[in-house]
């Protein structure tokens, strides 16, 4: 287990290094000078030079890169070009919003996908199966932002059931979590259904029947345990995608989360904010995969990490 964690930590460090390098140079190659954004269109060349010196973008790219890496190693993400506040503070301020959104969306997708997927498989060819199939097809086909706008139109504008803007109450998160969760749960429904169908044909199900166990017991004690094993891994990846999905959904619902910070960072050519956001997402994604792997090995007695 210790060596497993060490290996994964090493892999994480390597991933972060690669991604940070990629983002760093990509930003320098792309057109757009941060100093121009900071100073505004009417700034003189002298003013721009001064700003470039302050931001450090006048130095050779290699020097900027090394400096940034050294800071990164100390977990110092630098200051925002635009607001001059530490990027770490900016991220920590906005993290709760994004975590709440992604967490809600993820819970929603599991709560829908597991029962629906299992029932679709067990009651194959019945109404519930068709509901499951239609839900997963539609859910995968409909883009989250469109669903978000639709939900806003119906539940906020027309029906007035949920507030339109803001992030100061739980109610504000319901619609965005739905918009974000539906497409992910649509994917999971399929996976749960297929995996359950596969397990239904396994011989141990016949043994359980031959013992005279109730159908519920067979389903929940025997079948589900095995059917959900592959779901653990995929759910971990899905949660990662969901964090990426918050970028668009936060925009649609005007939620002040990480996604909006990231997006405004891109508009403003705010290099430190973009770099830190990308690294943050990469780390979270890797950690989620790691957690999913550990959970998988806990749930599956045949796999022991080590």
């Amino acid at each position, binding site marked *: 287990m210790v060596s497993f964690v060490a290996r994964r930590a090493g892999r994480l460090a390597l991933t972060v290094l690669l991604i940070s390098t990629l983002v760093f140079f990509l930003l320098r190659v792309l057109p757009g000078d941060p100093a121009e954004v900071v100073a505004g269109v009417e700034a003189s060349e002298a003013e721009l030079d001064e700003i470039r010196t302050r931001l450090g973008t006048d130095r050779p790219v290699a020097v900027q890169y090394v400096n940034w890496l050294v800071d990164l190693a100390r977990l110092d993400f630098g200051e925002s070009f635009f607001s001059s506040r530490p990027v770490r503070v900016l991220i920590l301020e906005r993290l709760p919003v994004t975590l709440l959104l992604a967490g809600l969306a993820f819970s929603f997708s599991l709560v829908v996908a597991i029962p629906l997927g299992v029932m679709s498989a067990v009651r194959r060819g019945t109404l519930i199966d068709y509901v499951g199939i239609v839900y997963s097809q539609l859910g995968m086909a409909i883009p989250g932002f469109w669903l978000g706008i639709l939900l806003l139109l119906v539940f906020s504008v027309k029906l007035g059931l949920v507030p339109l803007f803001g992030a100061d109450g739980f109610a504000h998160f319901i619609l965005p979590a739905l918009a974000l969760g539906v497409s992910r749960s649509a994917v999971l429904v399929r996976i749960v259904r297929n995996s359950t169908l596969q397990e239904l044909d396994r011989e141990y199900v016949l043994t359980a029947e031959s013992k005279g166990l109730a159908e519920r017991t067979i389903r929940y*004690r025997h079948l589900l345990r095995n059917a959900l094993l592959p779901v653990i891994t995929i759910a971990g990846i899905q949660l990662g995608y969901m964090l990426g999905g918050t970028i668009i959904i936060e925009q649609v619902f005007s939620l002040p989360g990480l996604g909006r910070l990231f997006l405004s960072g891109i508009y403003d050519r705010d290099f430190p904010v973009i770099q830190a956001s990308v690294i943050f997402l990469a780390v979270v994604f890797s950690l989620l995969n790691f957690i999913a792997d550990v959970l998988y090995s806990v749930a599956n007695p045949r796999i022991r990490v080590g």
Partner: protein
Amino acid sequence: MSHSSENSNALLRIIDLSVSFGEGRARLRAVRNVSLDVLDREIHALVGESGAGKSVTARAIPGLWPHTAHLESGAVYYRDTELSSRSREQLRSFRGAKIGMVFQDPGRHLNPSLPMGRQVSEPMEEHLGLSRGAARARALRLLKLVELSDARRVLRSYPHELSGGMKQRALIAMAISCGPGLLIADEPTTALDATVQGQILSLLRRLRDQLDMGILFVSHDFGVVQAVADRISVMYAGGIVESAPAELLFQGPLHPYTDLLISAIPEPHKRGSRLRSVPGAAPDPRLSYSGCPFYARCPLARDICARVAPPLVEHAPGHYAACHFADELRKRDSVHG
């Protein structure tokens, strides 16, 4: 036609059972008018090639036929209770409680994600209303009863941590946990190597004596059956072609198919001699035919065999055979044997 009419106190009684799969032209008749009895404390072996309908028959008893199969005719009695008219759900109180089942390939028939203790205790919690703790204590005794040396460890183990023989013993412990009157063992030794095979067979015999069970023992292997059975019924193409007490059957089979199967048993002292098999294949179970199903492969076949299906007739006390020329075989046996 049933040999069972005199044994009205049979433990298990199958009367004229027919099971088929599919409809219309694709209808596949897997089991054709099978009747057999298992008496108290009897090990009744059902032997035949794969596809002969043995497993379908065995699984039909506690209502576990595949969902695609349907019962065309027949009745199944466990003591005085008719089973075949009951739903799968209604038969639940019989399965595991009064009728235990052991399968081929124990590895696949155990849940890979549940510890053995849980799996062995389950039926006792379900049928005997035992608490978890009480069921676990009994599970430990059961594992010792099936001669698992390190029962405490097995209780905590997952199936993949056990050998094939250990898994089969645990599966047997599970099947007998509620003290069933009947144990259905469907090819219980086929997936095991020869040494373990012998151990499992003697275990089954010992459990029969200790627990007063009848056993329906399904196998394709006449050698295995010889070692364990009190009575043998031979199945061919979905029907029973011969049924007799084991000694009688081995002394003088009255059906040419049985005769061929017995002579095909490899003899350990004749190493190097060729393994014999019965040439040809059973008829397509989708076809209907009027004559003897064994006609095409039978060394004794004559014209009548193609036209008229021979009924299962009692040729000697307790010895039934479905062959027009059973008496010829009998005379030959008495001359040679």
